[in-house]
């Protein structure tokens, strides 16, 4: 049996990879001819400004190559029958008129096609041909004919050497049996034309945010140069928020991502046009995610981006194409002239969702998104069908990825047996030992990214002059499928035994080329990557000098490549047990889900009872009872045979490595030693006990304390709430994400229990993202008073005996007001646990600057750590709400399952190794090793026993500290040996420049 995933965006891709890695067969259906979704159109991703395509492209290729994944693109679902565990799905694959199996992606057809059609990928700002590939790195890399634009001239069919063009192709119906379905349909962007007052579609210099994204992109219409429609470089740009979001006329909900992406646009635009002036108009700046607030602060402080707390009423165009923006702030009207206006458009439910809701038999919510429950955030109303990504609520990439993994975890439970256990058969490895190096060099143009600054042809010719190079070529995109084929062919034709690729960075693309080598029967470690894009073409201007530098980098690569040796992957058995640290909502959810999949869990809780923060939550904003959930979870966990709970316990020590950890747990009954294969860190966070605003006084309490009082039935008559207490300041720059929601939740509860009660909320930005917006709106409607304050002019709480008063500044009235409420409630920050530091040292995983755990990649690996076998869930990652906590916990389960579902895992072969002939067992390396992977062991020789250093490969991280300590170069890290680097140095310095 298998799983159907509908939608090939980042959520669908992540879900596919998780399931496929756990050994399931996956069908990935995509409406467009290629996968990649919205993320493929992005230039950068916030908050790290990572190049979007650079992090996505390896994932695309992984999907394309994964033996367990079948991509069905240009297709849609026609019918679904059956129920959870056994769905019968009918899929219609529409004709692309190009045979995917034959097309090499060479693109000759597209260059000769006479048609100029609007390029949707560049949001209509450039043209493409009728036979086209959506974007260069696309997967599957096969051209398609847009028959609506095709004139049928037949040129493409004539020029295609592969005879792939087939005008007669017919649609195809595919029928599949699957056990579960994941809907990762994505969303659609709001059509800005519907907000006529902004003049989109009429004024040429009013563009949408996605168009701006394309303009900023190096693969965009002007190759990364920002021009207006008239070719002028805009010097003053306005970015308008909430276009199609938080708007009663169109979509009342908040689209969650626009504030942060606008910040990103402002920063990137500033990098492109350093003297530009950029204004962002937003009612509230909702940079609530992990690291987003700091990102916005950087935009303000380092890049000088100006934020206006205002909503734009109307835009007029001047004769010269400039735009007059009319806006209101603090009750006053302003007008300002801009060169360019960018509309930050929000998300809407995708076009097909209504049709699919009928086909799949699932319910939609009031906004047309897939309906989910806050305690089961990835389950639809129909069992066996799950949802991930924007299909159920607008969200950013990490949340989508987490949800995708979460839905994958759920889908796993319907799988009775692992039908396909993926191990792709590679051709037998050629033995190159004893062969003289025969190096093949491939220089990548990366479109124009490299070729515009580095003379790639000269570089390729230069490569031929280097010793050992027998083949050298330059290719448009080295990472594309056809280039991979070319590499494989060259390996065969020229009997190559080392490959050097000069392209982008090994950090993203090395795995891809290694696999290519394996497919060609070469050991994957006979590959060397030369970075001539990020570290050459992108950072230099002078073509001649950049080419010289590229030559010396290439020379270094070839020198090193000559000394590369075939390495064998390290195989390790997996102990199919997990250790879960923290018995809160995340920990318990993870434990239960793992237990359902047959994994034994050790759940360690430092308190005397399970539940964590959930114990202090009495109601949710949408009216559900978390205490019911808590009772249910605790009962299930404690009665589950596969879960062993240690209360009042802490982790004492951890030894071992991925798949084979040995931990000591300090319990009240002494130390318990356990073996396990994975670790999930779900240690949570806690509410900050404020030092400010008179906290400690009987009448000054926090939101959690208020909730407990209300839970006890004590409803105050008048309350002043102060937001951002302990958050978003110099000491704690991050946004605590949940407090706005908490304040509104409690305000509404107070109003519900006592409609006469007065509630005043003093806020900086109300961050009720996504569908939470409706509660903000309801609170306003029900008479909760919201007053804005700025950090420069904060409210003051004064206590006088038993009395308490709040003084605050009202911007609209322009004067100071005093309120004497019954209670002052502080929306206090969520802060990381103090023992995180210790735990991070024990587990050897990093913390971010705020003290939360730092995931492997903020965008695409939200629940992984860089250290394999350790995962992250719940508030230990960052502050979050119940549904988000559950989905993160499920995501961690899915990621852990990709490991725990295997009997053996295969590890990187780049580890330390001792050349025993040279080792004198001085033990300097033993002392230096940070993970104690080296020991002095006895080895038998002809004449007796000798002592030599020996590396425990499965523990070794390959850091090479030992190799630099060794006085004679007897211990080396394979792939970075003493001689390889020395040789690279020689090569680097040999080229004069």
């Amino acid at each position, binding site marked *: 049996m298998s799983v159907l995933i509908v939608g090939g965006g980042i959520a669908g891709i992540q879900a596919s990879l998780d399931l496929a890695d756990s050994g399931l067969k996956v069908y990935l259906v995509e409406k467009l001819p290629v996968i990649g979704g919205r993320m493929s159109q992005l230039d950068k991703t916030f908050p790290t400004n990572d190049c979007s395509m650079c992090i996505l492209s390896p994932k695309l290729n992984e999907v394309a190559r994964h033996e367990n994944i079948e991509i069905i693109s240009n297709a849609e679902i026609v019918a679904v029958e059956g129920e959870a565990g056994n769905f019968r799905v009918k899929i219609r694959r529409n004709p692309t008129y190009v045979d995917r199996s034959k097309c090499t992606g060479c693109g000759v057809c597209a260059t000769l096609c006479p048609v100029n059609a609007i390029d949707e990928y560049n949001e209509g700002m450039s043209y493409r041909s009728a036979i086209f590939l959506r974007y260069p790195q696309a997967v599957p890399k096969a051209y398609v004919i847009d028959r609506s634009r095709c004139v049928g001239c037949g040129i493409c069919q004539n020029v295609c050497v592969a005879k792939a063009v087939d005008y007669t192709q017919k649609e195809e119906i595919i029928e599949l049996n699957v056990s579960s379905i994941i809907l990762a349909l994505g969303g659609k962007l709001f059509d800005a034309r519907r907000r006529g007052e902004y003049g989109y579609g009429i004024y040429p210099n009013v563009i949408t945010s996605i168009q701006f994204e394309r303009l900023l992109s190096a693969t965009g219409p002007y190759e990364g140069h920002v021009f207006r429609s008239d070719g002028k470089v805009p010097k003053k740009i306005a970015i308008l928020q909430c276009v199609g979001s938080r708007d009663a006329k169109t979509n009342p909900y908040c689209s969650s991502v626009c504030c942060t992406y606008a910040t990103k646009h402002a920063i990137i635009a500033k990098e492109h046009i350093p003297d530009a002036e950029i204004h962002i108009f937003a009612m509230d700046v909702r940079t609530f995610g992990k690291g987003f607030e700091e990102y916005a602060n950087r935009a303000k402080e380092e890049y000088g981006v100006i934020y206006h707390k205002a909503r734009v009423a109307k835009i007029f165009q001047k004769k010269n194409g400039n735009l007059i923006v009319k806006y209101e702030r603090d009750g006053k009207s302003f007008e300002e002239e801009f060169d360019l206006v960018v509309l930050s458009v929000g998300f809407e439910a995708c076009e097909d969702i209504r049709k699919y809701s009928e086909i799949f038999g699932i319910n939609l919510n009031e906004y047309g998104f897939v309906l989910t429950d806050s305690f089961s955030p990835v389950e639809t109303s129909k069992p066996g069908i799950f949802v991930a990504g924007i299909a159920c609520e607008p969200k950013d990439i990490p949340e989508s990825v987490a949800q995708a993994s979460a839905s994958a975890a759920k889908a796993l439970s319907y799988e009775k047996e692992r039908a396909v256990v993926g191990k792709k058969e590679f051709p037998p490895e050629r033995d190159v030992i004893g062969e003289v190096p025969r190096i093949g060099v491939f220089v990548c143009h990366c479109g124009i990214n490299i070729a515009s600054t580095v003379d790639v042809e000269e570089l390729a010719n230069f490569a031929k002059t280097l010793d050992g190079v027998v083949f050298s070529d330059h290719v448009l995109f080295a990472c594309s499928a056809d280039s991979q084929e070319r590499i494989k062919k060259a390996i065969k034709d020229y009997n190559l035994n080392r490959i050097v690729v000069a392209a982008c960075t090994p950090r993203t693309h090395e795995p891809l080329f290694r696999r290519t080598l394996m497919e060609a029967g070469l050991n994957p470690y006979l590959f060397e990557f030369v970075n001539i894009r990020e570290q050459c073409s992108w950072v230099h201007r002078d073509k001649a000098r950049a080419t010289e530098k590229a030559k010396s980098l290439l020379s270094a690569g070839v020198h090193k490549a000559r000394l590369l040796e075939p390495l064998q992957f390290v195989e390790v058995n997996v102990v199919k047990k997990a250790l879960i640290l923290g018995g809160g909502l995340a920990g318990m959810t993870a434990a239960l889900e793992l237990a359902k999949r047959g994994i034994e869990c050790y759940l360690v809780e430092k308190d005397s009872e399970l539940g964590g923060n959930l114990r202090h939550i009495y109601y949710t904003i949408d009216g559900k009872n978390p205490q019911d959930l808590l009772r249910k979870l605790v009962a299930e966990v404690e009665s589950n045979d596969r879960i062993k709970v240690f209360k009042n316990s802490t982790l004492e020590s951890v030894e071992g490595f991925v798949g084979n950890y040995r931990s000591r747990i300090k319990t009240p009954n002494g130390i318990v030693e356990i073996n396990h294969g994975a670790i999930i860190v779900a240690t949570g966070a806690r509410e900050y006990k404020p030092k400010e605003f008179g906290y400690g006084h009987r009448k000054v309490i926090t939101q959690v304390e208020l909730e407990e009082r209300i839970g006890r039935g004590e409803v105050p008559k008048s309350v002043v709430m102060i937001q951002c207490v302990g958050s978003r300041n110099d000491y704690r720059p991050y946004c605590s994400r949940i407090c706005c929601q908490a304040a509104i939740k409690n305000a509404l509860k107070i109003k519900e229990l006592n409609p006469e009660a007065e509630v005043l909320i003093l806020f900086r930005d109300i961050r009720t993202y996504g569908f939470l917006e409706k509660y903000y709106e309801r609170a306003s409607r029900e008479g909760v008073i919201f007053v804005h304050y700025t950090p420069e002019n904060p409210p003051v709480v004064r206590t006088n005996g038993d009395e308490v008063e709040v003084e605050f500044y009202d911007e609209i009235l322009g004067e100071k007001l005093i309120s004497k409420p019954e209670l002052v409630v502080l929306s206090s920050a969520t802060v990381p646990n103090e023992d995180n530091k210790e735990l991070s040292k024990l587990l050897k995983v990093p913390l971010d600057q705020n003290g939360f755990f730092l995931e492997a990649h903020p965008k695409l690996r939200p629940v992984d750590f860089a250290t394999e076998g350790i995962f992250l869930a719940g508030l230990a990652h960052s502050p979050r709400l119940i549904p988000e906590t559950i989905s993160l916990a499920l995501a961690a389960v899915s990621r852990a399952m990709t490991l725990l579902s295997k009997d053996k895992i295969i590890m990187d072969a780049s580890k330390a190794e001792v050349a025993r002939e040279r080792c004198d067992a001085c033990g300097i390396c033993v002392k230096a090793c940070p993970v104690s992977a080296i020991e002095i062991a006895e080895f038998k020789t002809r004449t007796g026993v000798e002592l030599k250093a020996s590396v425990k490969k499965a523990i070794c991280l390959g850091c090479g500290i030992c190799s630099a300590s060794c006085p*004679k170069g007897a211990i080396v890290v394979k792939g970075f040996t003493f001689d390889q680097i020395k040789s690279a140095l020689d090569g680097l310095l040999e080229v004069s420049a």
Partner: protein
Amino acid sequence: MNEVEKIREELKKSGAERIVAFVKKENEPREVLAVLSQKDIDKVTFSPLSVNNPAKLLMQLNGKVAVVAKGCDAMAIRQLIKEGKLKRENLFIVGISCRGVIDYRKLSKIEKLSEIREVRLEGEEVVLKMRNGEKRIPFAEVIEENCLYCEHPTPVIYDVLIGEAREGRKDFSDLEKLEKMSREERWEYWISQFERCIRCHACRSVCPLCYCEECIVDPSNLAISPMSTAEDKASYPRLLGKTVNAKDNAIYHIIRVLHHAGRCSGCGECERACPMELPLRKLERKLEKVVKEVFGYDLNEDIPFFSKLDMLGD
């Protein structure tokens, strides 16, 4: 009982089968190290001309060994024990609180060596027993410069100690002269030294801590295995040429002393062995100083993993 008799007595008491101690060299007043058995105990001698460090010799011997060790010798022995090269339980160390040794080269300038029969220390004077009669010269005139700055004249490890424990010097005033020079002067000084080096590698051969069988600078620094090909063997890249070139020589010496950071026992064998009389100890001393002053640890302590430096941050 004089010093030599005491040494013999202790060596005898140790009961060790083998004894590593100094014996008189034929034809010269110099003393050399020898491996003896108990029956040869009377050959054992000791004088300010017992200059060599027995630590390297000990590494070749198995079983129980009694050894005579001066302050610096003991430093080396302890370091080798730490590095697992010697076993403490196999050693019986007769420690000698050392007043310094005679620089043989200095002595040869003052007296004709073939005339000298025996040398002993009396107070601040060296008594030379000549072929005819006795001569006295001030010890200060012939003492090895290295000994003047000795930090550990009393052995840091021993089973019996002969002589009174004495304090060592803790300063680095010997480096002052060089440190005060301008950079270019220093370069001139050192490059003229390195120019002389003939890369006979005697410095590393005699060094008790240079016990690697193959050195990183060896021209054929290649571990030959069944994997290595003819190509490997022929074109194996080397770190340094073997050419006697002042620059390569400089790099060789830098690498050598870097490997001794925090390990060097200060015995001065390198300088003594150097046929070109390079001031190699100066380089080692510089590192000793850095290790002590920047990293904040003493050679006498076990070097802790987290030192002062780790806390510096940046």
